[in-house]
């Protein structure tokens, strides 16, 4: 980490001139961690905007959280699996051509005027290799493996985005929706009409977090 007592260059310039020597680790004051967070080894938190992580969150190894362009807020009980990437601008190097077949038709105008930034609600699960640049993800939602959620998307609560789906930027997904088979959607009425199923799901989620806490060595000291 380069210690520069002289006046630092502005945040934008630092972020854009990514040389190997210049560290992009956020300043210690811009990461706000709850003490019960579990951050595994090889997880990366980069960027200068504030990153807030709620209690009981689990970040698996090799996850990347980037607040280079906008702040990131992660709610409580969120589980982020290996090689997932969260943050606006983080998926810039993915080849969107290879995913043409599974891309849903893009929404016309911007569905929501939201400020830049990524907010993950409580108990969200982001599975391996997913890229989440969304503006907001509601509580209890599951973003499955290899999903690309574009910038500015708003996803409701208890949604499921099935594996390998691609959500173009600025789409809105209402509550309790299941996005499957690339671009098809349906409302999951089973879980919508039965709150006890929602509670059961959250119970299982809490149990899973307990097991992660026992199995994954915690490297949170590096970031506090």
């Amino acid at each position, binding site marked *: 980490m380069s210690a520069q007592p002289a006046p630092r260059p502005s945040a934008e310039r630092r972020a854009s001139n990514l040389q190997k020597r210049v560290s992009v680790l956020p300043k210690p004051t811009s990461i706000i961690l709850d003490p019960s967070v579990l951050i595994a080894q090889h997880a990366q938190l980069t960027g200068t905007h504030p990153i807030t992580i709620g209690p009981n969150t689990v970040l698996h190894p090799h996850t990347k959280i980037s607040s280079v362009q906008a702040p990131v807020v992660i709610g409580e009980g969120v589980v982020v699996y290996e090689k997932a990437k969260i943050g606006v601008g983080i998926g810039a190097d993915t080849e969107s051509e290879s995913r043409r077949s599974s891309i849903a038709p893009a929404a016309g105008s911007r569905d929501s005027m939201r400020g830049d930034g990524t907010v993950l609600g409580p108990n969200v699960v982001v599975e391996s290799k997913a890229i989440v640049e969304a503006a907001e993800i509601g509580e209890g939602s599951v973003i499955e493996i290899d999903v690309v959620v574009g910038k500015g998307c708003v996803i409701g609560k208890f949604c*499921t985005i*099935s594996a390998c789906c691609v959500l173009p930027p600025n789409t809105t997904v209402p509550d309790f929706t*299941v996005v*499957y*088979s690339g671009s098809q959607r*349906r*409302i*999951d*009425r*089973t*879980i919508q*009409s*039965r709150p*006890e*199923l929602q509670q*059961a799901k959250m*119970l*299982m989620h809490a149990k899973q977090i307990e097991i992660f806490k026992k199995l994954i060595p915690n490297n949170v000291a590096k970031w506090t």
Partner: protein
Amino acid sequence: MAQPYPYTYYSCDCYDAKTTAGAAKRASAQLQAEDEDERTFDPRNPRSNFSLYPLEHLLYCEDCQQIRCPRCVIEEVLNWFCPSCLFEVPSSLVKSDGNRCTRNCYNCPICTSPMTVSSLDDPTNPSESGGPWILACPYCHWSTAETGIEFEKHTGITQQLSKVANGGKPIPTPKEREKERERRKELENRKSRDILSGSEDSPTQDQRRGDASPNLDDIYLNLAAFYKTQLVAQAPSNLFSPHDINFSSPSSYSRIMNLYSSTTSKKQRQKKAAPMREAALELEGLMIHDPSSDAAAIERIKKEGWGSTLSPAQKRAQPNPNIRFDTELRPVASLLMTKRGKRCRSCRHILSKPESKITSTRYKIKLLALQHIPRLSLRALTPTPPPGAPAATPFDYNALRSGIPAHFILHVSNPIFDPIRVTLATSSTTPGKVASRVTILCPQFEVGANTDVWDDALSSSLTPVKRASMLGPDGMPQIEAGKIWDRGRNWTSVVIEVVPGFLKDPLKKEDEELGEDEDVLEIPVFVRLEFESDVSAEDRGLGDSLGKKGERERREEAFWTVIGVGKIAPM
């Protein structure tokens, strides 16, 4: 079968025309057969397309000593099983219950993925039986709870499902339906009598109108019962004709017995049988279209939106394909799969038989053409660059250059345990619009037997032809006519020279459009094998003793192959 170039297809000559020649046509059929032999095989002929297969697709019948293609084998079902639960279903049950799984295997009506039986139990307060159960789809998250169906136990889903309609209403069993039908018939009779007598409407009529419209199962059963009564009521035209008498039907039996019974029985008036008619009432299975149901459907679409309707694929998979909305969906039972064995069409010899254990993919009997027919494969002959020079670009089979002779190595490998003599024949120009000139430089050669490696090493075998010594002065390999290119233990390779033709004749002024795939260069090659093999047990005469083991029999096999070389690039 789009394979990358170069490929080799084998032709199976299992013509239907040869077997169905009638007596009057025999002369013409023979002529035609002779014509076939003399004509070169034309791979562009639409008919020949159906007889060409890669070697891996062909089986071989040892009794007929012939190739058998997928068209000339008979398949027979060995066993039926469900792909989700891997449970074997005996064929008698398949005949009675149908070709779907009758245990717990259901597919989601929305996304067709297999559904799991899940419990709606509260994990903090578990109930005794495990709570109500539902079928839930793990992919699109549809569940039977959306249509209001819940099960009491997690086994026997089919039985429980047949008793519950969407929304939780119970479906009556066939016995109850029978009773219902009888009861309604009585009401009908009573009502018609009432009308004749001019009385007021009985209250039972209102009750009948109050019932919901009969569902598809009811209609089907009513119709089946109606047709049965019609068949029974049909009196035979001639009592003694063997066709009409149905001895299993009690009414015709009793009629015959009456004739032979006591002579004092009064003569029954021959009633003229009413002709068979179609169903005329709802009770008999007639579906009367109600225009108000259409209006109701339109209102429903207006209210719930297009998302609540079903796609044609989803409707087709349902047991009742006339439904329109997603609340009428039923889980679809998994279709059963079969394990099949194959037999030769003419001699019924078993060619392939899988193991009867469902989870094993092995075969008990496997008679493949790969083990009896030599494999021909083509490779381009590129000059090896002298050491130190940069590697040559790989040969592009998709861009053959017209008019420039290209050399290819044809590799023939022998799978049988005897040495064979191979004769290759091809016409000098390929048939079709684009005529390319083909020359096989060594049409007759021998290929060694497929012996063990040790046998070969111990015995003094043919000295391998050294290719390096054949290099000419300029580094290009010397190609000599009449000599093979290379040889190994059980393979030989020879050189073929091909001059691809021109796609468009430069002399012709008209612009002829080339058809699809006419620029593909395909060479039909006639392969003839001669070899000596041990006499098989069945061919031996009755008087032969076992002492004549060393007798060898000359055998000959011949077939057409088509070697696809590549695409000719437009100039």
